């Protein structure tokens, strides 16, 4: 499916390292001779990813595997430590060096990529009326003039499924689901073509979650949007996505169209993850969870990061990082077992 689409985003070797500086106690201990260093987290480690126009790409993985960090780099709100990101073929972000694109193109790229967060309340200014929250950016960026602002804001409200007559209210006067709609109206108001949704329905009740997922589906159809949909909820990802990318400790371990991932996953981690998901169809079933804890990204296991939990690990897995290779058209997986065959 993705092969036929023109790429909107191309990520090549994208990495993000965070330095965890020692705290005061640590620095004092070090000055007294303790062997302590500033620690480095490889939050995202050499990710290659292409997203086609109009596609919904689901990004899944356990807590701390780097989903949000990757999403923020795509949205242009976090600089890269390595690699580059192209949007419509032009480099808009590059580690260390200057991007190809000029300032106007960069500004446009950033505006066209909007983010929707898990906690809408934290991302809405509490003392602003919601009409101003939604209307501020399009006014500043000259997308709409002051005289048309009112009707423009009404239109955004209606599109997000909100009654415009509520627009003089403040965020705290809305329910969780309504606040998420306000966040969506605000994002849509700058006319993006790409949304990064980071756990956008995670905090919502099931019945409200269904309403917001339907809204995302409607908007995709009506506005030709492309989504990077980050979620730890595999049921939600399966429902919404055309293609699914699975991350483990900063790396992409598998990528394929949704059908393939959920029916014929290749990577042992993907299969364990799918086995852990509770299903409403199951009855009094035996759970077969992945064993072991999520390793610390500060000190990831060498070789294949998954090897301490992998039921199929071979000696090579402890030493050598498996490359992400195409194992069938459009299906990539990073596992040494694929090379033995």
């Amino acid at each position, binding site marked *: 499916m993705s092969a036929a689409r023109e790429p909107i985003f191309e990520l090549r070797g994208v990495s993000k390292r965070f330095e965890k500086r020692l705290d005061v106690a640590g620095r004092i201990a070090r000055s007294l001779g303790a062997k302590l260093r500033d620690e480095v987290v490889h939050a995202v480690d050499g990710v290659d990813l292409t997203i086609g126009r109009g596609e919904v790409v689901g990004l899944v993985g*356990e*807590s701390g595997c780097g989903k949000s960090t990757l999403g923020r780099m795509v949205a242009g709100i976090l600089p890269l430590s390595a690699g580059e990101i192209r949007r419509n073929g032009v480099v808009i972000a590059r580690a260390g060096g200057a991007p190809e694109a000029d300032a106007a193109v960069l500004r446009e790229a950033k505006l066209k990529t909007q983010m929707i967060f898990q906690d809408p309340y934290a991302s809405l200014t509490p003392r602003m009326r919601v009409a101003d929250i939604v209307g501020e950016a399009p006014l500043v960026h000259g997308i709409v003039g002051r005289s048309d602002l009112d009707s423009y804001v009404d239109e955004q409200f209606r599109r997000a499924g909100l009654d415009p007559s509520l627009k003089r209210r403040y965020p705290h006067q809305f*329910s969780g*689901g*309504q606040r998420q709609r306000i966040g969506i109206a605000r994002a849509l108001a700058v006319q993006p073509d790409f949304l990064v949704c980071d756990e956008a329905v995670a905090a919502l*009740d*099931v*019945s*409200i*979650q*269904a*309403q917001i*997922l*339907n809204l995302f*589906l*409607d908007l995709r159809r009506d506005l030709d949007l492309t989504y990077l949909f980050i979620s*730890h909820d*595999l*049921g*939600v990802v*399966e*429902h*919404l996505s055309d293609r699914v990318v699975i991350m483990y400790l900063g790396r992409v371990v598998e990528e394929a169209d*949704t059908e393939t991932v959920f029916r014929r996953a290749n990577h042992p981690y993907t299969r*364990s*993850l799918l*086995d*852990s*998901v*509770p*299903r*409403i*169809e*199951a*009855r*009094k*079933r*035996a*759970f*077969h*969870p*992945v*064993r072991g*804890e*999520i390793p610390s990204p500060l000190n990831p296991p060498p070789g294949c990061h998954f090897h301490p939990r992998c039921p199929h690990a071979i000696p090579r897995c402890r030493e050598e990082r498996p490359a992400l290779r195409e194992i069938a058209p459009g299906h990539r997986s990073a596992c040494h077992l694929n090379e033995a065959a």
Partner: protein
Amino acid sequence: MSLTLEVRGLRTHFFTRAGVVKAVDDVSFSVARGRVLGLVGESGSGKSVTGFSIIGLVDPPGRIVSGEILFRGRDLTRLPEEEMRQLRGNRIAMIFQDPMMTLNPVLRIDTQMIETVLAHAKVSREEARARARDALGMVGIPSPEERLSAYPHQFSGGMRQRVAIAIALLHRPDLIIADEPTTALDVTIQGQILAEVQKLAAETGTSLIWITHDLSVVAGLADEIAVMYAGKVVEHGEVSAVLDSPLHPYTAGLIGSVPSRNARGARLKQIPGMTPSLLNLPPGCAFRSRCDRASPACEADPPMRELAPGRNARCIHPLLPAEA
């Protein structure tokens, strides 16, 4: 079948300045020995307040205004606080979404667990420590002996929750009330904990009330399901019966909202509108503004009725099995 717990007509209300919040309003259910009841509903439906009522931890301005909570035949609502304290942590234990509600951050795990053992059992410190170690082993904590001397902050979220569960298990309680204990955890860690809990319930005969908003968790874990909406249980029955052919329109709507119940990429069957505020809730079926089967008859409180053997719902126009 001997009942561990029987709740009859429980009403727990909060008397706030803005008005009365009927958080739990005429709730009845029972849990037999060794059975798992899944108490499901969306946020604010009264699940936690039901749990706190059973364990006697409702704080003012809330109080139990009527009803009975029979624990092995004794009505807990009439028990003096001292006797209730003796039951808590001993015969009845509660596990919370945030394990730090149970754990003390400044004490080592062994100190906390040994104290819990000694609070209700006359055994030596060595014996108490051995019980603590065994309990950690039972919930799947590797090298329990070494882990005993750690502090809570040295554990991951999933490990902390396991420790909290181990503490709940120390006295082999008759009843454990678990309030969204895996909601904040990764699915892989949730899967591990569900596997351990399922095994424990089967092995020890402990009855379990598992509170969650996640129908899929209940599907795999519970024997029975009670669905709460706006302070009331609206449907109750065996898991398979309820999930395969719900009788109450709200239950049907909830099941329909689960993405895997819908064709991929298709619009989900959503419930319109949102949950009503429990403050000064008008009489009648609280679901009627969202219900496509509502009629004027629904303006009177629908009673809980047994519509088929073992199948109860609080609805004037329930779905027929064929419609669900």
